[in-house]
């Protein structure tokens, strides 16, 4: 018999996801693990983890991880990479971690063109604390701290992360993907692979923003949540590649 589905080698054998049922984090983590396997990176990888729904990433992935304080994963990864340039270094963060409390660190890591890869899960909310307004909450979206919906008077506007990162000179690759359909999942994996490869080629900062569902805090079924990703998120956060220096090289 031929095995058609198995757990990636880069995942711990006994891992138990702490994500809510229907959450897309599990898909994203799996894609990362598959790529670590496919690119043969497991023995050479150090991950900077974040604070948020994916805080226990080191319980799922069978790789070396250092926990960064909330928002500081890109700074931590900079320290790892500058002292270990031969290692594959990446961060896995939420939108609150990457683009709210840690946006200064995230942007400057991109601006410096650090040879690391960063992954940001955008689910428009602070998921772990129960669904508060975050940097990517959509206009009009109701959260526990925007009970009347996001408006510009109280909250200002959501941030378009992948476009902002693409503006940085040190960025080699920046894309936004989603996980709501099988084709989108396949595209997400290709984008993650590019973000990993630009690091391996020494081209600079590789970044992927992943639109992800949060059924629990959106008060939806997983199917409804994926519909919401398609109908509400993607129109505001268009999918696509905003920068790709695969051929050119940031330092040339």
């Amino acid at each position, binding site marked *: 018999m031929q095995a058609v589905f198995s757990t990636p080698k880069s995942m711990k054998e006994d891992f138990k996801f702490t994500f809510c049922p229907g959450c897309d984090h599990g898909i994203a983590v799996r894609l990362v693990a598959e790529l670590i396997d496919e690119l043969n990176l497991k023995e050479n990888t150090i991950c900077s983890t974040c604070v948020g729904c994916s805080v226990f990433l080191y319980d799922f992935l069978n790789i070396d991880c250092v926990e*960064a304080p909330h928002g500081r994963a890109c700074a931590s990864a900079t*320290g790892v990479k500058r002292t270990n340039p031969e290692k594959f270094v990446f961060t896995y963060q939420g939108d609150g971690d990457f683009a709210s409390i840690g946006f200064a660190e995230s942007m400057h890591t991109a601006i410096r063109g650090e040879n690391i890869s960063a992954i940001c899960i955008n689910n428009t909310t602070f998921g772990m604390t129960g669904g508060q307004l975050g940097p990517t909450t959509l206009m009009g979206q109701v959260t526990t701290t925007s009970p009347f919906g996001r408006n510009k008077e109280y909250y200002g506007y959501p941030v378009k992360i992948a476009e902002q990162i693409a503006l940085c000179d040190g960025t080699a690759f920046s894309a936004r993907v989603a996980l709501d359909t099988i084709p989108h999942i396949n595209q997400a994996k290709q984008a993650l692979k590019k973000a990993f490869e630009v690091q391996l080629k020494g081209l600079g900062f590789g970044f992927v923003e992943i639109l992800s569902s949060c059924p629990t805090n959106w008060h939806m079924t997983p199917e409804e949540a994926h519909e919401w990703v398609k109908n509400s998120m993607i129109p505001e956060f268009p999918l696509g590649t905003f920068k790709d220096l695969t051929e050119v090289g940031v330092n040339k």
Partner: protein
Amino acid sequence: MSSEKVLIKGNYAIAQAAINAGCQCYFGYPITPQTEIGEYLSAEMPKLGRGYVSAESELAAINMVVGAAATGAKVMTSSSSCAVALMQEALSYACSDEVPVVVVNVMRAGPGLGYVYPAQGDYNQAVYGGGNGDYKIIVLAPATVQECIDYTYKAFYLARKYRNPVILLADGLLGQMMEPACFGENPYPEVDVSSWALTGAKGRDGKAIYSCARDEKAHIQKIHDLFKKFEIITENETSYEEFETEDAEIILTAFGSMTRNIKAAIRVLREKGVKAGGFRPITLSPFPTKRISELAADGKDFVVVEMNMGQMFKDVKYAVEGKSNVSLVNRPCGEWLSVEEIVSSVEKILNKKEGAYASCI
């Protein structure tokens, strides 16, 4: 250069000593009065093929340091007072993570932005920490440019030996003044970090360095373990300097560069017939509580002389436990208390003209 005596500024001395200690990468952000450390290393580290990162903030710098240190790299950052305040969160993490970070604080005046003149107002910040939870940092306080070199070597060694953050607590006076000093050889051996450092999961399972608690029982045990480790540090590494305490009736106590002034004041007081001695903690944490307690039990009074509102004063009082009198001679910041001011304050205390609090404004 090792045995040669050179005339060198404190900040440059710290920077070169960090290089000699094997610092692989420096992460920092400018702030007076310590900026020369970063300037020096930005010029010297690339020549040695080592790293220098101009961080976007002190918050980023210390987190870069923690990330790098988690891989076993020898790294440091330097800063001053209000910007070291920005590092407190990460220092709490680093203690819990047990990663060996070295932080240099060349103190300026606070609170808030304060000013660039020297002060000793970060005793509490360094010794008690501004981060959350129960944690302890090793704090070394140099009094001379020579000690800036010696204790920079020591800071790198102790950080790795005990997997604990170390703060070198200097001040603007030391950072900015030139003194003859000798670099010598870094006297400390290399510490093997291979058992815990993150190197990639080659031939083994992945491992993680984190502070997050997994369950209540393990969390409680971890904090007990950290404090047991600090008991060992206290036993092995508590360091202090005593001068003329044997026959002393009153012991002037200071840390850092104020040590220089109490030494001079003791000479003047001795000439005037006062049996004065001196006590100077070198490790502010672990604090030499036991030795102060012994001296107090011999009936010796203490006068704490410091450039803050009495931060070390309360630790001396705690150590003395009411066995003798403890007075304070202080100024919050600015012009260092002069030998004359210290002498006249001690005389007032001896004549009972002042209470326990003899501030020299």
